[in-house]
Protein backbone atom coordinates (compact mmCIF):
# COMPACT_ATOMS: atom_id res chain seq x y z
CA UNK A 1 0.00 0.00 0.00
CA UNK A 2 1.27 3.54 -0.66
CA UNK A 3 2.62 5.56 2.24
CA UNK A 4 1.51 9.14 2.83
CA UNK A 5 3.47 11.58 5.00
CA UNK A 6 2.48 15.09 5.97
CA UNK A 7 4.57 18.18 6.65
CA UNK A 8 5.40 18.54 10.31
CA UNK A 9 4.11 22.10 10.10
CA UNK A 10 0.65 20.59 10.44
CA UNK A 11 1.39 19.24 13.88
CA UNK A 12 0.86 22.70 15.34
CA UNK A 13 -2.78 22.39 14.42
CA UNK A 14 -3.72 18.72 14.52
CA UNK A 15 -2.21 15.22 14.40
CA UNK A 16 -1.06 14.15 10.93
CA UNK A 17 1.01 10.97 11.28
CA UNK A 18 2.55 9.02 8.41
CA UNK A 19 0.24 6.19 7.40
CA UNK A 20 -0.16 3.43 4.85
CA UNK A 21 -3.34 3.79 2.85
CA UNK A 22 -5.23 2.04 0.11
CA UNK A 23 -5.89 3.68 -3.23
CA UNK A 24 -4.60 3.86 -6.78
CA UNK A 25 -4.77 7.63 -7.22
CA UNK A 26 -3.75 10.56 -5.06
CA UNK A 27 -7.42 11.37 -4.51
CA UNK A 28 -8.18 7.87 -3.27
CA UNK A 29 -5.16 7.85 -1.00
CA UNK A 30 -6.07 11.21 0.53
CA UNK A 31 -9.70 10.16 0.91
CA UNK A 32 -8.55 7.13 2.88
CA UNK A 33 -6.64 9.38 5.27
CA UNK A 34 -9.49 11.84 5.62
CA UNK A 35 -11.94 9.03 6.38
CA UNK A 36 -9.92 8.43 9.53
CA UNK A 37 -9.08 12.08 10.18
CA UNK A 38 -11.81 14.30 8.74
CA UNK A 39 -10.42 17.50 10.28
CA UNK A 40 -7.25 17.11 8.21
CA UNK A 41 -9.11 17.47 4.92
CA UNK A 42 -9.59 21.23 5.18
CA UNK A 43 -5.89 21.76 5.78
CA UNK A 44 -4.84 19.97 2.59
CA UNK A 45 -7.80 20.60 0.25
CA UNK A 46 -9.91 23.69 -0.32
CA UNK A 47 -13.70 23.68 -0.24
CA UNK A 48 -13.84 22.63 -3.91
CA UNK A 49 -11.73 19.57 -3.19
CA UNK A 50 -8.59 20.87 -4.91
CA UNK A 51 -5.15 20.98 -3.35
CA UNK A 52 -4.76 24.22 -1.44
CA UNK A 53 -2.87 26.85 -3.39
CA UNK A 54 0.14 26.72 -1.10
CA UNK A 55 0.20 22.98 -0.51
CA UNK A 56 2.48 20.82 -2.68
CA UNK A 57 2.25 17.05 -3.04
CA UNK A 58 5.04 14.83 -4.31
CA UNK A 59 4.81 11.16 -5.32
CA UNK A 60 8.25 9.55 -5.14
CA UNK A 61 9.78 12.99 -5.39
CA UNK A 62 7.74 14.09 -8.42
CA UNK A 63 5.34 17.01 -8.03
CA UNK A 64 1.80 15.89 -8.77
CA UNK A 65 0.19 17.40 -11.89
CA UNK A 66 -3.55 17.24 -11.34
CA UNK A 67 -4.15 19.61 -8.43
CA UNK A 68 -7.93 19.74 -8.89
CA UNK A 69 -8.93 16.22 -9.91
CA UNK A 70 -6.20 14.53 -7.82
CA UNK A 71 -5.98 11.84 -10.50
CA UNK A 72 -2.23 11.25 -10.41
CA UNK A 73 -1.69 7.48 -10.09
CA UNK A 74 -0.03 6.02 -7.02
CA UNK A 75 1.40 2.51 -6.79
CA UNK A 76 1.56 0.08 -3.92
CA UNK A 77 5.14 1.01 -3.06
CA UNK A 78 4.88 4.74 -3.69
CA UNK A 79 5.67 7.38 -1.13
CA UNK A 80 3.41 10.45 -1.05
CA UNK A 81 4.63 13.61 0.70
CA UNK A 82 2.39 16.57 1.51
CA UNK A 83 4.28 19.84 2.04
CA UNK A 84 3.60 23.52 2.46
CA UNK A 85 4.68 25.37 -0.68
CA UNK A 86 5.87 28.73 0.50
CA UNK A 87 7.36 30.51 3.45
CA UNK A 88 7.57 34.07 4.61
CA UNK A 89 7.57 36.50 7.49
Amino acid at each position, binding site marked *: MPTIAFTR*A*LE*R*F*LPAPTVEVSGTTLGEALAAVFAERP*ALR*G*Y*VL*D*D*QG*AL*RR*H*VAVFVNGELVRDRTGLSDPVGARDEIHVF*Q*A*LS*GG
Partner: protein
Amino acid sequence: MTDRIFVGTRKGLFELARHDGTWEVADIRFLGDPVSAVLAQGDGTLYAALDLGHFGAKLWRRDGSGMWEELAAPAYPPKPEDAADDPHPWSLGRIWALEPGGVPGRIWAGTMPGGLFRSDDGGASWALNDALWRMPERRKWFGVAGGEQPGISTVLVDPRDPRDIRVGVSTAGVWATTDEGASWRLINRGMYNEYMPPELREDPISQDIHQLARCTAHPEVMWCQHHNGVFRSENAGANWTEVTAIRPSKFGFAVAAHPRDPQTAWFVPATKDERRIPVDGKVVVARTRDGGRSFDVLADGLPQHHAYDLVWRHGLAVDGTGERLAFGSTSGGLWISENGGDSWTAPDARLPPVSVVRFAQA
Protein backbone atom coordinates in the same frame (compact mmCIF):
# COMPACT_ATOMS: atom_id res chain seq x y z
CA MET B 1 -17.36 48.84 30.99
CA THR B 2 -15.38 45.80 29.99
CA ASP B 3 -11.91 45.02 31.25
CA ARG B 4 -10.90 42.73 28.40
CA ILE B 5 -9.74 43.51 24.89
CA PHE B 6 -9.00 40.95 22.18
CA VAL B 7 -6.38 41.86 19.61
CA GLY B 8 -6.02 39.72 16.50
CA THR B 9 -2.65 40.07 14.83
CA ARG B 10 -0.47 38.69 12.07
CA LYS B 11 1.05 36.40 14.69
CA GLY B 12 -1.68 35.40 17.06
CA LEU B 13 -4.54 36.44 19.31
CA PHE B 14 -3.65 38.59 22.32
CA GLU B 15 -6.02 39.13 25.23
CA LEU B 16 -5.47 42.24 27.28
CA ALA B 17 -6.83 42.66 30.77
CA ARG B 18 -7.07 45.73 32.96
CA HIS B 19 -5.49 45.45 36.42
CA ASP B 20 -5.29 48.43 38.77
CA GLY B 21 -5.82 50.82 35.91
CA THR B 22 -3.14 49.27 33.69
CA TRP B 23 -3.75 47.16 30.59
CA GLU B 24 -1.54 44.08 30.26
CA VAL B 25 -1.30 41.06 27.98
CA ALA B 26 -3.11 38.37 29.96
CA ASP B 27 -3.27 35.54 27.44
CA ILE B 28 -1.96 34.56 24.02
CA ARG B 29 -3.42 32.00 21.65
CA PHE B 30 -2.52 30.92 18.08
CA LEU B 31 0.95 32.43 18.47
CA GLY B 32 2.51 32.61 15.01
CA ASP B 33 -0.77 32.38 13.08
CA PRO B 34 -2.61 35.22 11.32
CA VAL B 35 -5.92 36.13 12.97
CA SER B 36 -8.41 37.68 10.54
CA ALA B 37 -11.56 38.12 12.64
CA VAL B 38 -12.65 37.97 16.28
CA LEU B 39 -16.09 37.90 17.88
CA ALA B 40 -16.67 38.14 21.63
CA GLN B 41 -20.21 37.20 22.65
CA GLY B 42 -22.08 38.35 25.72
CA ASP B 43 -22.10 34.84 27.20
CA GLY B 44 -18.31 34.75 27.24
CA THR B 45 -17.94 32.70 24.07
CA LEU B 46 -15.06 33.86 21.90
CA TYR B 47 -14.57 33.16 18.19
CA ALA B 48 -11.30 33.57 16.29
CA ALA B 49 -10.85 33.15 12.56
CA LEU B 50 -7.39 32.28 11.29
CA ASP B 51 -6.01 32.93 7.83
CA LEU B 52 -3.28 30.30 7.60
CA GLY B 53 -0.98 30.99 4.69
CA HIS B 54 -0.67 27.35 3.65
CA PHE B 55 -3.64 25.62 5.15
CA GLY B 56 -6.53 27.99 4.58
CA ALA B 57 -9.09 29.83 6.68
CA LYS B 58 -9.96 28.24 10.02
CA LEU B 59 -12.47 28.97 12.75
CA TRP B 60 -12.03 28.35 16.46
CA ARG B 61 -14.35 28.85 19.42
CA ARG B 62 -13.56 29.24 23.11
CA ASP B 63 -16.41 28.41 25.43
CA GLY B 64 -17.16 30.07 28.72
CA SER B 65 -14.91 27.61 30.57
CA GLY B 66 -11.89 28.56 28.49
CA MET B 67 -11.71 25.46 26.28
CA TRP B 68 -10.82 26.03 22.61
CA GLU B 69 -12.28 23.89 19.83
CA GLU B 70 -11.84 24.03 16.07
CA LEU B 71 -15.13 24.36 14.19
CA ALA B 72 -15.88 23.61 10.57
CA ALA B 73 -15.09 26.75 8.60
CA PRO B 74 -17.68 28.12 6.19
CA ALA B 75 -17.43 26.28 2.86
CA TYR B 76 -18.61 27.32 -0.59
CA PRO B 77 -20.83 24.91 -2.50
CA PRO B 78 -19.48 23.18 -5.62
CA LYS B 79 -19.18 25.62 -8.50
CA PRO B 80 -21.96 24.77 -10.98
CA GLU B 81 -21.42 24.67 -14.72
CA ASP B 82 -23.54 27.75 -15.31
CA ALA B 83 -21.08 29.73 -13.19
CA ALA B 84 -18.10 28.97 -15.38
CA ASP B 85 -17.71 32.63 -16.26
CA ASP B 86 -17.92 33.83 -12.65
CA PRO B 87 -14.77 35.93 -12.23
CA HIS B 88 -14.51 35.03 -8.55
CA PRO B 89 -13.58 31.67 -7.05
CA TRP B 90 -16.14 29.54 -5.25
CA SER B 91 -13.78 28.86 -2.42
CA LEU B 92 -13.24 30.39 0.98
CA GLY B 93 -10.39 32.88 0.97
CA ARG B 94 -10.62 34.68 4.29
CA ILE B 95 -13.13 35.08 7.11
CA TRP B 96 -13.14 38.86 7.39
CA ALA B 97 -16.09 39.72 9.63
CA LEU B 98 -17.87 37.82 12.39
CA GLU B 99 -21.00 39.41 13.83
CA PRO B 100 -23.77 38.30 16.18
CA GLY B 101 -27.09 37.70 14.45
CA GLY B 102 -29.37 39.08 17.13
CA VAL B 103 -30.98 35.73 17.99
CA PRO B 104 -29.46 32.97 20.13
CA GLY B 105 -26.90 30.89 18.25
CA ARG B 106 -26.88 33.00 15.11
CA ILE B 107 -23.65 34.39 13.68
CA TRP B 108 -22.97 36.03 10.34
CA ALA B 109 -19.59 35.65 8.67
CA GLY B 110 -18.45 38.01 5.92
CA THR B 111 -15.78 36.45 3.75
CA MET B 112 -13.56 36.81 0.75
CA PRO B 113 -14.32 36.25 -2.13
CA GLY B 114 -17.65 37.85 -1.16
CA GLY B 115 -19.80 35.13 0.34
CA LEU B 116 -21.97 35.84 3.36
CA PHE B 117 -22.44 32.84 5.65
CA ARG B 118 -24.91 32.21 8.46
CA SER B 119 -24.71 29.85 11.39
CA ASP B 120 -27.69 29.16 13.64
CA ASP B 121 -25.86 26.82 15.98
CA GLY B 122 -23.10 28.95 17.41
CA GLY B 123 -20.69 28.36 14.54
CA ALA B 124 -20.88 24.56 14.44
CA SER B 125 -22.28 24.63 10.89
CA TRP B 126 -22.55 27.28 8.19
CA ALA B 127 -24.60 27.94 5.09
CA LEU B 128 -23.79 30.33 2.27
CA ASN B 129 -26.41 33.02 1.76
CA ASP B 130 -27.40 31.93 -1.70
CA ALA B 131 -29.53 34.97 -2.50
CA LEU B 132 -26.68 37.45 -2.22
CA TRP B 133 -24.12 35.13 -3.78
CA ARG B 134 -26.35 34.59 -6.81
CA MET B 135 -27.15 38.25 -7.44
CA PRO B 136 -26.03 38.86 -11.05
CA GLU B 137 -24.40 42.10 -9.90
CA ARG B 138 -21.96 40.16 -7.73
CA ARG B 139 -19.86 39.46 -10.78
CA LYS B 140 -19.14 43.19 -10.90
CA TRP B 141 -17.65 43.18 -7.42
CA PHE B 142 -13.93 43.66 -7.45
CA GLY B 143 -11.08 43.19 -5.07
CA VAL B 144 -8.95 46.28 -5.14
CA ALA B 145 -8.55 46.39 -1.37
CA GLY B 146 -7.55 43.90 1.27
CA GLY B 147 -6.50 41.30 -1.27
CA GLU B 148 -7.13 40.04 -4.76
CA GLN B 149 -10.74 39.13 -4.02
CA PRO B 150 -13.77 41.21 -3.07
CA GLY B 151 -14.72 40.84 0.55
CA ILE B 152 -17.57 41.55 2.95
CA SER B 153 -15.88 43.73 5.52
CA THR B 154 -18.93 44.74 7.55
CA VAL B 155 -22.14 43.02 8.63
CA LEU B 156 -24.51 45.22 10.64
CA VAL B 157 -27.63 43.66 12.12
CA ASP B 158 -30.34 46.09 13.24
CA PRO B 159 -30.51 45.71 17.04
CA ARG B 160 -34.30 46.15 16.80
CA ASP B 161 -34.86 43.54 14.09
CA PRO B 162 -32.49 40.65 13.31
CA ARG B 163 -34.03 40.30 9.82
CA ASP B 164 -32.79 43.77 8.85
CA ILE B 165 -29.13 43.68 7.86
CA ARG B 166 -26.66 45.92 6.05
CA VAL B 167 -23.54 44.52 4.45
CA GLY B 168 -20.56 46.60 3.36
CA VAL B 169 -18.45 45.22 0.54
CA SER B 170 -15.01 46.20 -0.57
CA THR B 171 -15.59 46.83 -3.39
CA ALA B 172 -19.29 46.74 -4.11
CA GLY B 173 -21.25 49.25 -2.06
CA VAL B 174 -23.82 48.69 0.70
CA TRP B 175 -26.32 45.84 0.42
CA ALA B 176 -29.53 45.51 2.42
CA THR B 177 -31.95 42.79 3.35
CA THR B 178 -35.09 43.17 5.44
CA ASP B 179 -36.16 39.54 5.20
CA GLU B 180 -33.28 37.78 6.95
CA GLY B 181 -31.25 37.41 3.77
CA ALA B 182 -33.91 35.96 1.46
CA SER B 183 -33.54 38.96 -0.87
CA TRP B 184 -31.01 41.78 -1.22
CA ARG B 185 -30.81 45.25 -2.69
CA LEU B 186 -27.88 47.52 -3.45
CA ILE B 187 -28.99 50.65 -1.61
CA ASN B 188 -26.20 53.22 -1.28
CA ARG B 189 -26.75 56.62 -2.92
CA GLY B 190 -24.66 59.72 -2.52
CA MET B 191 -21.21 58.19 -2.34
CA TYR B 192 -18.65 58.87 -5.02
CA ASN B 193 -15.23 57.61 -6.00
CA GLU B 194 -13.19 60.42 -7.46
CA TYR B 195 -10.59 58.02 -8.86
CA MET B 196 -13.06 55.99 -10.92
CA PRO B 197 -13.85 56.61 -14.60
CA PRO B 198 -16.47 59.40 -14.86
CA GLU B 199 -19.34 57.10 -15.78
CA LEU B 200 -18.71 54.98 -12.67
CA ARG B 201 -17.92 57.80 -10.25
CA GLU B 202 -21.31 57.70 -8.52
CA ASP B 203 -22.23 54.16 -9.49
CA PRO B 204 -23.38 52.53 -6.21
CA ILE B 205 -21.63 49.24 -6.93
CA SER B 206 -18.29 50.95 -7.57
CA GLN B 207 -18.07 52.34 -4.03
CA ASP B 208 -15.27 50.91 -1.91
CA ILE B 209 -16.73 50.51 1.57
CA HIS B 210 -13.70 50.28 3.80
CA GLN B 211 -15.84 50.00 6.91
CA LEU B 212 -19.34 50.76 8.20
CA ALA B 213 -20.46 51.47 11.75
CA ARG B 214 -23.88 52.22 13.20
CA CYS B 215 -25.14 53.77 16.40
CA THR B 216 -26.69 51.01 18.50
CA ALA B 217 -29.28 53.31 20.10
CA HIS B 218 -30.11 54.99 16.77
CA PRO B 219 -29.46 52.26 14.21
CA GLU B 220 -30.64 54.37 11.30
CA VAL B 221 -27.47 56.46 11.76
CA MET B 222 -24.49 54.94 10.00
CA TRP B 223 -20.98 56.09 9.29
CA CYS B 224 -18.74 54.96 6.49
CA GLN B 225 -15.00 55.21 6.09
CA HIS B 226 -14.93 54.97 2.32
CA HIS B 227 -11.84 54.70 0.17
CA ASN B 228 -12.60 58.18 -1.06
CA GLY B 229 -13.64 59.87 2.18
CA VAL B 230 -16.08 59.80 5.07
CA PHE B 231 -19.85 59.58 4.64
CA ARG B 232 -22.83 59.58 7.01
CA SER B 233 -26.33 58.21 6.56
CA GLU B 234 -29.48 58.89 8.57
CA ASN B 235 -31.62 56.27 6.87
CA ALA B 236 -29.68 53.06 7.47
CA GLY B 237 -27.39 53.32 4.50
CA ALA B 238 -29.74 54.31 1.71
CA ASN B 239 -28.61 57.91 1.29
CA TRP B 240 -25.20 59.23 2.23
CA THR B 241 -23.78 62.70 2.76
CA GLU B 242 -20.07 63.34 2.58
CA VAL B 243 -18.47 64.49 5.82
CA THR B 244 -16.01 67.01 4.48
CA ALA B 245 -14.86 68.38 7.86
CA ILE B 246 -12.80 65.28 8.66
CA ARG B 247 -9.22 66.15 9.58
CA PRO B 248 -6.28 65.80 9.04
CA SER B 249 -7.24 63.75 5.97
CA LYS B 250 -10.23 61.94 4.59
CA PHE B 251 -8.54 58.65 3.74
CA GLY B 252 -8.54 55.79 6.20
CA PHE B 253 -9.96 52.36 6.88
CA ALA B 254 -11.53 52.23 10.34
CA VAL B 255 -14.58 53.85 11.90
CA ALA B 256 -16.28 53.43 15.26
CA ALA B 257 -19.75 54.78 16.09
CA HIS B 258 -20.77 55.85 19.58
CA PRO B 259 -23.23 53.27 20.92
CA ARG B 260 -25.71 55.87 22.21
CA ASP B 261 -24.90 59.25 20.66
CA PRO B 262 -25.69 59.36 16.93
CA GLN B 263 -23.60 62.52 16.56
CA THR B 264 -20.33 60.95 17.74
CA ALA B 265 -17.90 58.79 15.78
CA TRP B 266 -14.16 58.16 15.58
CA PHE B 267 -11.79 57.66 12.64
CA VAL B 268 -8.05 57.10 12.21
CA PRO B 269 -7.09 59.12 9.12
CA ALA B 270 -4.07 58.53 6.91
CA THR B 271 -2.59 60.13 3.84
CA LYS B 272 -4.31 58.94 0.74
CA ASP B 273 -3.84 56.84 -1.24
CA GLU B 274 -0.65 55.23 -2.42
CA ARG B 275 1.37 55.92 0.71
CA ARG B 276 -1.14 55.05 3.43
CA ILE B 277 0.75 56.39 6.42
CA PRO B 278 -0.24 58.88 9.11
CA VAL B 279 -0.19 62.51 7.98
CA ASP B 280 3.23 63.99 8.84
CA GLY B 281 4.17 60.81 10.71
CA LYS B 282 1.75 61.62 13.56
CA VAL B 283 -0.80 59.06 14.75
CA VAL B 284 -4.08 60.80 15.53
CA VAL B 285 -7.74 59.92 16.00
CA ALA B 286 -10.42 62.18 14.52
CA ARG B 287 -13.58 62.51 16.61
CA THR B 288 -16.78 64.28 15.78
CA ARG B 289 -19.47 65.01 18.35
CA ASP B 290 -21.77 67.00 16.12
CA GLY B 291 -22.66 64.61 13.36
CA GLY B 292 -19.57 65.35 11.31
CA ARG B 293 -19.82 69.13 11.13
CA SER B 294 -16.53 69.47 13.04
CA PHE B 295 -13.76 67.21 14.30
CA ASP B 296 -11.35 67.09 17.21
CA VAL B 297 -7.92 65.78 16.26
CA LEU B 298 -6.91 63.68 19.29
CA ALA B 299 -3.20 63.12 19.86
CA ASP B 300 -2.66 63.01 23.64
CA GLY B 301 -0.66 59.85 24.31
CA LEU B 302 -0.25 58.93 20.65
CA PRO B 303 3.14 58.94 18.87
CA GLN B 304 3.82 62.24 17.14
CA HIS B 305 7.32 61.70 15.74
CA HIS B 306 8.16 59.36 12.87
CA ALA B 307 5.14 57.14 13.37
CA TYR B 308 4.08 55.15 10.30
CA ASP B 309 1.25 53.14 11.78
CA LEU B 310 -1.73 52.34 9.60
CA VAL B 311 -4.98 51.10 11.14
CA TRP B 312 -6.93 48.53 9.14
CA ARG B 313 -10.71 48.23 8.82
CA HIS B 314 -11.31 46.21 11.99
CA GLY B 315 -8.50 47.75 14.01
CA LEU B 316 -10.57 50.33 15.95
CA ALA B 317 -13.16 49.44 18.58
CA VAL B 318 -15.39 51.20 21.08
CA ASP B 319 -17.02 49.54 24.08
CA GLY B 320 -20.68 49.63 25.08
CA THR B 321 -20.30 52.83 27.06
CA GLY B 322 -18.66 54.92 24.37
CA GLU B 323 -15.91 55.83 26.82
CA ARG B 324 -13.37 53.09 26.18
CA LEU B 325 -11.73 52.81 22.80
CA ALA B 326 -8.82 50.82 21.49
CA PHE B 327 -7.00 50.65 18.19
CA GLY B 328 -4.08 48.71 16.82
CA SER B 329 -1.79 49.33 13.88
CA THR B 330 0.16 47.64 11.13
CA SER B 331 3.31 48.44 13.12
CA GLY B 332 2.00 46.58 16.14
CA GLY B 333 1.03 49.68 18.08
CA LEU B 334 -1.92 49.41 20.44
CA TRP B 335 -3.51 52.35 22.19
CA ILE B 336 -6.39 52.47 24.65
CA SER B 337 -8.51 55.40 25.80
CA GLU B 338 -10.83 55.48 28.78
CA ASN B 339 -12.23 58.93 28.16
CA GLY B 340 -13.72 58.83 24.69
CA GLY B 341 -10.39 59.45 23.00
CA ASP B 342 -9.29 62.55 24.92
CA SER B 343 -6.12 60.71 26.00
CA TRP B 344 -4.52 57.39 25.17
CA THR B 345 -2.15 54.93 26.81
CA ALA B 346 -0.12 52.14 25.26
CA PRO B 347 0.29 48.76 26.98
CA ASP B 348 3.85 47.61 27.55
CA ALA B 349 3.99 45.43 24.45
CA ARG B 350 5.25 45.52 20.88
CA LEU B 351 2.69 43.41 19.09
CA PRO B 352 2.72 41.88 15.61
CA PRO B 353 0.77 43.83 12.96
CA VAL B 354 -2.81 44.24 14.21
CA SER B 355 -5.76 43.21 12.04
CA VAL B 356 -8.67 43.35 14.47
CA VAL B 357 -9.48 44.80 17.91
CA ARG B 358 -12.62 43.94 19.88
CA PHE B 359 -13.82 44.54 23.40
CA ALA B 360 -15.24 41.72 25.47
CA GLN B 361 -18.96 42.13 25.99
CA ALA B 362 -19.89 43.17 29.51
